[in-house]
């Protein structure tokens, strides 16, 4: 999108005030959860005294109080946002996860799910956590989500935002200026914020350590923290290349993604805990197809195919995963893609649980290849399953053209 037409980003500074909230420009918004550990030999060391006493609200006239007030205002705005998911079951589920990770301190933390198809999680100093739906689409199980949340919560409990704010004060004016030129993850912001990363490396390392401690204590399988990175690596490499960790302006001062993954594995050790894949899948099921469509609409099909390919391999009975990959192939539409699309879409239909749109996609594919009877059958099935579909009038016009 032409930057000159992007809306002013009135929250540039606020995003900086959050511990994270940073995307890989315009693409996979990798969270600051994704920042480097900065340690050569990770170890848990002394178990951190991180759980226990709840925060007292800081005095309003203090530096920290001012920061909280700023973030409270942002949170009030976020609550009204049309992009925030209002699903009480999902909210309760995420709240229970936070409590499992931090015990009584969970009363101070609010989790907001924001519908944005990028990988990101942020934590503000007042206890406001944001999780973007692109992240929820990408985690395989509850343990992976808990790993991200634990890392974010560690930043909160250790008040990293306050320290970072102090460090960034000299950069704030520049940051606000740069923030005018685009949304989260623009190069301008990355450039400003990358200066702060040298400071935050220590925090990231600490948050990894504490997050891992919480993950283990809560009984989650700790190796899944590293798996999040392993999963992301494939998508990042599409645009970033094999050496994405070294070449990205943001990641330049940090260990490569693969190193991060390996460090987390070392921290995890031989732990055996729960993954809880089924529990997470159930609570996300009502939204997942919408999020798949959000991902496909980004039209970054090479990246989406990495994601959906992984889903197909890990869940061969998942009709939505087959549909998602087939639709991505269909929309990418390279000469070799049409056969792959047909194969995946037929696989989705064969499960008996394919979403109606899988029949639509199959119909469009057959129509494109002039297989009229098959196209008619697929479109007819689509309209039977979804007679009020937004594009039903268009599909009916296609049927009229196809019928002899």
């Amino acid at each position, binding site marked *: 999108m*032409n930057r000159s037409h992007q809306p*002013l980003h009135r929250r540039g500074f606020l995003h900086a005030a959050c511990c994270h909230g940073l995307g890989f420009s315009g693409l996979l918004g990798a969270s600051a959860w994704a920042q480097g550990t900065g340690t050569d030999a990770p170890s848990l060391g002394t178990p951190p005294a991180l759980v226990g006493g709840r925060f007292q609200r800081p005095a309003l006239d203090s530096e920290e109080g001012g920061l909280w007030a700023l973030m409270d205002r942002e949170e009030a705005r976020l609550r009204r946002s049309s992009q925030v998911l209002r699903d009480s079951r999902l909210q309760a589920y995420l709240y229970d996860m936070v409590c499992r990770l931090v015990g009584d301190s969970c009363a101070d933390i609010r989790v907001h799910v924001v519908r944005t198809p990028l990988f990101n999680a942020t934590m503000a100093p007042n206890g406001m956590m944001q999780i973007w739906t692109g992240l929820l689409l990408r985690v395989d199980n509850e343990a992976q989500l808990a790993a991200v949340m634990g890392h974010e919560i560690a930043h909160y409990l250790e008040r990293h935002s306050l320290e970072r704010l102090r460090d960034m004060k000299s950069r704030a004016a520049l940051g606000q200026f740069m923030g005018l030129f*685009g*949304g989260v993850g623009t190069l301008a912001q990355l450039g400003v914020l990358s200066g702060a990363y040298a400071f935050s490396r220590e925090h990231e390392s600490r948050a990894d350590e504490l997050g891992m401690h919480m993950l283990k204590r809560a009984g989650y399988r700790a190796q899944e923290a590293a798996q999040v990175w392993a999963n992301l690596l494939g998508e990042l490499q599409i645009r970033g290349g094999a050496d994405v960790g070294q070449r990205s302006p943001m990641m330049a001062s940090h260990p490569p993604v693969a190193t991060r993954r390996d460090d987390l594995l070392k921290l995890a050790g031989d732990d055996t805990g729960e993954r809880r894949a089924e529990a997470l899948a159930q609570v996300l099921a009502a939204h997942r197809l919408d999020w798949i469509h959000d991902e496909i609409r980004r*039209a970054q099909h090479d990246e989406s195919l990495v994601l959906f390919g992984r889903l197909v391999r890990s869940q061969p009975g998942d009709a939505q995963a087959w549909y998602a990959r087939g639709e991505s192939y269909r929309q990418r539409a390279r000469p070799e893609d049409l056969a792959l699309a047909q194969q995946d879409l037929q696989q989705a239909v064969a499960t008996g649980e394919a979403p109606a749109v899988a029949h639509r996609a199959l119909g469009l594919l057959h129509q494109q290849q002039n297989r009229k009877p098959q196209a008619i059958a697929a479109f007819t099935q689509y309209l039977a399953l979804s007679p009020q579909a937004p594009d039903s009038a268009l599909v009916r016009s296609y049927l009229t053209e196809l019928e002899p």
Partner: protein
Amino acid sequence: MKKITTLALTLSLAALLSACGTVVNQLEGEQRLGQRLSVQLPTAWNRFEQDASVPYQVWTQEGLMLDQLRIWAAIEPEQALLQKPAYDGKKEAQLPTFRAGLRPDQWVGLLEAVYATDGSVVSIDKVEPTTWAGARAVRFEFALARQGDDLALRGVGWATEKDQAFFAAVFTAPRLHFYGQLLPQVQALMRTARFVP
């Protein structure tokens, strides 16, 4: 009361932004777009001057931040619908690119990608065949949660292909107040669209 407050805030924002100095030309009468498409303006519109590498024109009534009518005229095969972004050290992101012979659903898909590529959430509400500029076309309506400022927008678009070139017009404005207020002007404008020999 809430609506009034929202409107007042939005108007304040509009007033503020209207002072933000981008060169604007006021358009009236007949306009030729890409030398191939002609529209007769029932009311005046403002066109923002922009770099020639941007493959569409941007028109507005109330200001760029509030309403935008983007018009793609005579886009050639293999031409992208978005400006190529500045080099960011990585392989270029895929841009929605026109190919001759696409079907109406694929025209809509291209335009969806235009608005969703930055992470904004596009939800299509209606897609229907129509006639636009005297040609077989598609009309679609959508909701847009704009990444960056969380503004809830509504949009409507028209698209067609003529002589292996792509033509489209997409209007977006805040769901509250502005979309409903400006839609009749946009529709009136679209009814005047004609291809010229």
